[in-house]
């Protein structure tokens, strides 16, 4: 009896070590292909899994929570070692997460979090939207170095959390720097065409020579605004400083061509940190923190943007 218990106990402790290596199977429930960034996240997750020799089972939920719950149940039935979940909405996950917990399958949330008890998932890997805005603001504060600067802002879709948080972060960074003033702020709906239209009106309402910098909540709007600035006979990146967020390939190209100054990366590599955490967990039972913040890397003209563009352009953005 004693021997049996010892054997069993050692088997239980050995089991994770054995599965941690090449034969690990992980299920990934992706929201769907809602944006270029999402497509890039899927590509990078596949690459990360392949590099680690992990068998990745991929399920596309086509923006429906019921599909994600079905996918999770099927992962549990297949007895995968872990589950990556990019939740489409925040609520309604408790039951299926409990089922995963009962089956002792750790769940890692990617990019977004859920309204469920923290004990139901291993960790969440997300970016900090406020921090992204903060990095953008800090860059601008350093760049103008105390000189007076009138800033125009292209907001994301009104009421969306990236728009609210990226605005908040930027304003926090500008606090206490009276030389910087946001003179116009309007929504460009995260799209190129609306970014261009709104920038046109900014240029006319303020006069192009009176605008010193543009802060856009995403790169697409900045790319649209660059065209508007060019059509107004000004040089984007020189006459008007441009900083935006996301670091999509076209933004790297614009920086490489000197038409944009900085972009903050919303990395599509959420899976890398997630898989690192899972490996550590399976190897020696290290519990990761409940929130793993991805790096919000700042890209400026000092980086080799042409190379980054070449690397990123085939990720599916």
């Amino acid at each position, binding site marked *: 009896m004693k021997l049996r218990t010892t054997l069993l106990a050692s088997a239980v402790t050995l089991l994770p070590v054995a599965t941690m290596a090449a034969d690990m199977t992980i299920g990934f429930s992706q929201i769907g292909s809602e944006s*270029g960034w999402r497509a890039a996240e899927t590509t990078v997750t596949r690459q990360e899994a392949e590099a680690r020799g992990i068998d990745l089972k991929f399920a596309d939920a086509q923006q429906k929570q019921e599909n994600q719950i079905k996918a999770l149940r099927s992962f549990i039935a297949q007895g995968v070692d872990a589950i990556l979940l990019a939740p489409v909405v925040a609520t309604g996950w408790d039951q299926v997460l409990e089922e995963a917990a009962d089956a002792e399958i750790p769940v890692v949330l990617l990019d977004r979090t859920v309204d469920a008890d923290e004990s139901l998932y291993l960790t969440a890997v997300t970016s900090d939207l406020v921090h992204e805005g903060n990095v953008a603001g800090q860059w601008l504060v350093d760049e103008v170095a105390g000189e007076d600067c009138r800033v125009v802002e292209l907001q994301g879709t009104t009421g969306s959390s990236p728009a609210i948080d990226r605005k908040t972060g930027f304003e926090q960074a500008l606090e206490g720097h009276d030389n910087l003033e946001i003179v116009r702020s309007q929504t460009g709906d995260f799209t190129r065409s609306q970014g261009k239209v709104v920038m046109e009106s900014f240029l006319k*309402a303020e006069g192009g020579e009176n605008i010193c910098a543009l802060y856009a909540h995403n790169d697409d709007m900045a790319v649209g605004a660059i065209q508007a600035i060019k059509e107004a006979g000004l040089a984007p990146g020189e006459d008007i400083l441009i900083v935006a967020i996301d670091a999509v390939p076209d933004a790297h190209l614009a920086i490489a061509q000197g038409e944009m100054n900085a972009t903050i990366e919303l990395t599509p590599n959420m899976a890398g940190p997630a898989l690192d955490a899972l490996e550590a967990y399976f190897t020696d039972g290290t519990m990761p923190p409940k929130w793993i913040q991805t790096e919000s890397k700042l890209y400026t003209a000092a980086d080799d943007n042409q190379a980054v563009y070449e690397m990123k352009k085939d990720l599916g953005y």
Partner: protein
Amino acid sequence: MSATTPSVFKRILPQLIILAVVLALNVIVFPGFLNIEVHNGRIFGNLIDVLNRGAPVALLCIGMTLVIATRGIDLSVGAVMAIAGATAASLVSDGHHWTTSLLGALLVGSLCGLWNGFLVAVLRIQPIVATLVLMVAGRGIAQLITEGTILTFIDPGLIRLGAGTIIGIPTPILIWIALGAGAILAVRRTALGMLIEAIGINEASSRLAGINSRVLLICVYAMTGLCAALAGVIVAADIKGADANNAGLWLELDAILAVVIGGNSLLGGRFSILASLLGALIIQSVNSLILLSGMPPEFNLIIKSVLILCILVIQSPKVGHLIYMLRASSLHVPPPEPPSRRVLTPKEDAQ
């Protein structure tokens, strides 16, 4: 049928007044509104922006006016814009000449229109449902063409259609004015306009009177698809890329609104393309007002809807009649007849 100048003027007078009022509001909010300068050989100014940015809705409302005149509606124009933009972008990035790409996009747009026309005229599906099919499916088709990305291109010929100029004037302005003038001439200098109105008023009797309503209906929807395709190419050329998710999103509603502000009845019958085009300019002037006002974006939709509501209330038959009555009584002119364009057709009366 050929309209004489005074009656055309009388027809579009309310739209002209509203446009003048909205433009005046723009001047109040931003005194430099009417300034026009030339930068790098390009006319530059807020008024030009209104004409330029109004191009997609103006193009859409040319076709939409005709469809609505036949008692129909086309909800798919926004999606057709996305399809056409994606087609043009993918053809031009495959190395085709920009004219080929443009023709390809227009052809695809017309095919979309033919499909709608087939559903409405041959299968007799209600227009709002028939075109809803393509409204939903169209964006998916566009995404299939672009493979879910923003398909960018650098062909100067295609870009000139959206962002370029001809003798200093932005190309989109010239395109919509030319197409609008062409359409107005086609419907008013021939019997075409009257035939379209006849279908809208009473299709059964128009058929009995010898009008081939089926062919005409299909042609009208194809024309709408063509207009939408042109708008889609302009929008894509403007940002040098086809954005299948966002190109033309909700623009079908703006186009319908432009037709309504133009004083056209959604119940079909009499129509005026010129008034619809003025409606499109009114909507764009309202958009410009919102942008220039510098109000926080949370107010955008509220301001727009309040202004549109005011415009529609002023245009409503009741208020129009009231104004007429007041004027008549103060001038002691007896017959308090409502303005002629508000007279209901027999069919509408029966509703």
